[in-house]
Each structure stands twice: as structure tokens, then as C-alpha cells.
């Protein structure tokens, strides 16, 4: 399979709608129809709404799964999802995706600054001053929470049933808890930590780097697991 098709599967999951509507990028005939598995299209683009309603798939499901699928369907069939996925402007899906990547860079980059300092990089940097990177970090996280929710809603059935997505969320959650712990352990006694960084803090920093790398990996691999 050639480059973009391999590379951009999840990035274009929702964008396939774009290709059909606008002819952006890849030819529509070359990519599978969106949401083909559940026979659903976002309402705005469905030529015959309800025609392919996944009664069959619901019949196969039971209990909790029906509820969950129903919820994901509702999300994905919302007007908001239709806008994100199909609005004929690069300000919708492509820009939300780009903002999600900006937030990723800010969150992981600022965490890397703290982690690297604790692991011995930039020893002249007063640790107390590093506390300030937490504000941009949380701003980046807020951006990614908002854009992430929008991207999720746009393809709720796809992502909501993807184990890798939950792996990614778990890694991020643990990484955030660790960031909070680092803040407590290190910065409460910052002046004392400058010369000698507590072993516990170094372990947390190493774990933090690993978790963020893991989260990025999971996020990227989501693009290849349809």
C-alpha cells in the first residue's frame, strides 16, 4: 500500500467524508466508505438516513454493549459530529486535528522539560522556576481535552470500540497523575532539591517520559488499526 493510504488512515477516518463531499485529497473511490462497519453515515451526508440502521448489529449485541453502542451512535449521529466530520471547510476536522497536535507538543514538551531536568539535563536551571511550565502544560491539556472530545464525537463508534484508544487514555491518565505527583514531591522542597534530586523524583520523571512516549505511540497506532 502506498504512502498516504498507509499513513493517513485514522487521520482521514472522518475526512473520508470530506473526500466524498469535496474531493479533498485521496479519491473517494480509493478509500473505504466511512463507518461502513456499522452501515452509518453522519446524518448530514446520509442520502437515506436510517436505511442502513444497524439493527442487525444490535441484534448480535447484548445488554451493556447495546447501551454503549447506542450511546456512541447517538454521539456520532449528532449535528455536531456531522459538522466536525463533514463541514466543507478546513477549519473543521483538519484544523481541530492540527490543534490536537499542537496541544500534544505543548503537553509532552513541557513535561519533557521537567522530566529531563530531574534526570540531569540543564543542572543550572533552578528547579523552583520549572514550576511555571505547569501552567502551559495544563493549557495544552485543556486544548487537547476539548479537541479530543470533538474528534471522538466525530467518529465515536470507531474510537469507542478501539482497545488502543483506551490504552492511550489510560497512559495519559497515569502520566497526568505522575505529573501531579512530581509537582508535589519536587516543588514543595524545591530549593533543597536543586543539588540533589530525590531518587523517587527521578523514577517518576523516567516513568513520565515513558508514559508520554507510550501515549504518542498508541495515538499514532490508532491511525493504523481500522
Amino acid at each position, binding site marked *: *500500500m*502506498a*504512502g*498516504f*493510504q*498507509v*499513513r*493517513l488512515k485514522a*487521520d*482521514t477516518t472522518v*475526512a473520508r467524508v*470530506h473526500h466524498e463531499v469535496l*474531493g*479533498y*485529497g*485521496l*479519491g473517494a473511490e*480509493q478509500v473505504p466508505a466511512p463507518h461502513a462497519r456499522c452501515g452509518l453515515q453522519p446524518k448530514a451526508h446520509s442520502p437515506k438516513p436510517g436505511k442502513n440502521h444497524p439493527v442487525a448489529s444490535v441484534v448480535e449485541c447484548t445488554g451493556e454493549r447495546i447501551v454503549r453502542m447506542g450511546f456512541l451512535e447517538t454521539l456520532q449521529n449528532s449535528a455536531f459530529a456531522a459538522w466536525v466530520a463533514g463541514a466543507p471547510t*478546513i477549519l473543521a*476536522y*483538519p*484544523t481541530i*486535528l*492540527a490543534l490536537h*497536535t*499542537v496541544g*500534544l*507538543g*505543548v*503537553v*509532552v*514538551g*513541557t*513535561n*519533557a*522539560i521537567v522530566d*529531563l*531536568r530531574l534526570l540531569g*539535563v*540543564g543542572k*543550572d*536551571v*533552578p528547579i523552583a*522556576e520549572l514550576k*511555571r*511550565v505547569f501552567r*502551559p502544560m495544563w493549557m495544552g491539556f485543556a486544548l487537547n481535552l476539548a479537541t479530543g472530545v470533538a474528534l471522538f464525537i466525530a467518529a465515536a463508534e470507531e474510537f469507542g470500540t478501539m482497545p488502543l484508544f483506551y490504552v492511550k487514555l489510560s497512559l495519559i491518565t497515569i502520566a497526568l497523575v505522575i505529573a501531579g505527583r512530581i509537582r508535589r514531591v519536587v516543588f514543595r522542597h524545591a530549593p533543597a532539591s536543586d543539588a540533589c534530586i530525590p531518587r523517587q523524583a527521578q523514577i517518576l520523571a523516567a516513568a513520565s517520559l515513558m508514559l*508520554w*512516549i507510550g501515549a*504518542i*505511540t498508541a*495515538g*499514532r*497506532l490508532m*491511525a*493504523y488499526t481500522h
Partner: protein
Amino acid sequence: MMPFASWLSRTSLSMALQGQEGWLWPFLETFHFIGLSLLLGIAGFFDLRLMGVMKRVPIRAVWEFMPWAIAGFSINLVTGLIFLIAEPRQYVENISWWFKVLFLVLAGLNAMLFQTTLSTRIVRLKPGEDTPISFKVVGAVSLITWLGVLYFGRLMPFWGASTSAGL
């Protein structure tokens, strides 16, 4: 560019890479995103400091992290070149990619300008002191151009991709 791209795509190196795309692409993309995080997070933090944000953070301290931003850039240059060598046509036929390259060149020139003419003034700045206007301009240009690189990089599959490119 097209003759060059066609020639490049027929080289043995390109063809060897094409044969490995199934695993190579997700593998390299993960590194490309890790590099992006180092570059944007660390260089972006430095840019904000140049612009006068977070004045209490000593600018020299942030400067010490810059080798890691350069490491991130290097990761992305190498992985990006591999993408390009493997699928030259899908990039040179893509308008977004050209915008990405344009912003990359602007960001590079801006960084070189800072490195050659302004960076020695960093040591003279006292903690808490406001940055000169030249620092603010360079910082703002850097931030905007790197965000431009990222934005158009992410836009590639959506805007300006040729249907025939590399498929």
C-alpha cells in the same frame, strides 16, 4: 520537481523503503510526533520567554534545554526525509507540503538570524528583566512559523493532495 520525484521514487533506496511501508510508516510517524513534541514544547517555551512571557524564568535556563529541541528537530528531519524518499511524488504534488517547507525555511532563517546576531545578548539579560524588542520579534516569528510547519504538515491529507500522487 516531478522529474526529480519520479527519478527518486525509482531509486533502489526508495523502492526498498516502499517495500517496508506497512510497519515503517507507523514506526517512523511515532518518532516524528515525539520529535515534534520536543521541538514545539521546548522551542515554544523558549520563544515565549523571548517574547517576555514568564519573565521570572531565567532565559539562560531555558536556553540550556535547546539542544533537546534541536534533537527533536533532527529526529523529524531524518524521519521526514525517509517519508519523502519513500513517496516523493505524494509530497511534491501536495500544496500543503510546499507550505510546510516554506514555513520550515522561514523558521530556519529566523533561528539562524537569532543564533548569529542575537543569542550572545542572552547572557547579559538579568533574571526578571524584560526582553528587548528584537527578542520579542524573533520569538513571535519562531512560534508562528513552527506552528505553520505543524499546521500544514497536518493538513497534507486534507488540502492540496493530488489524487494521483503516490497511490
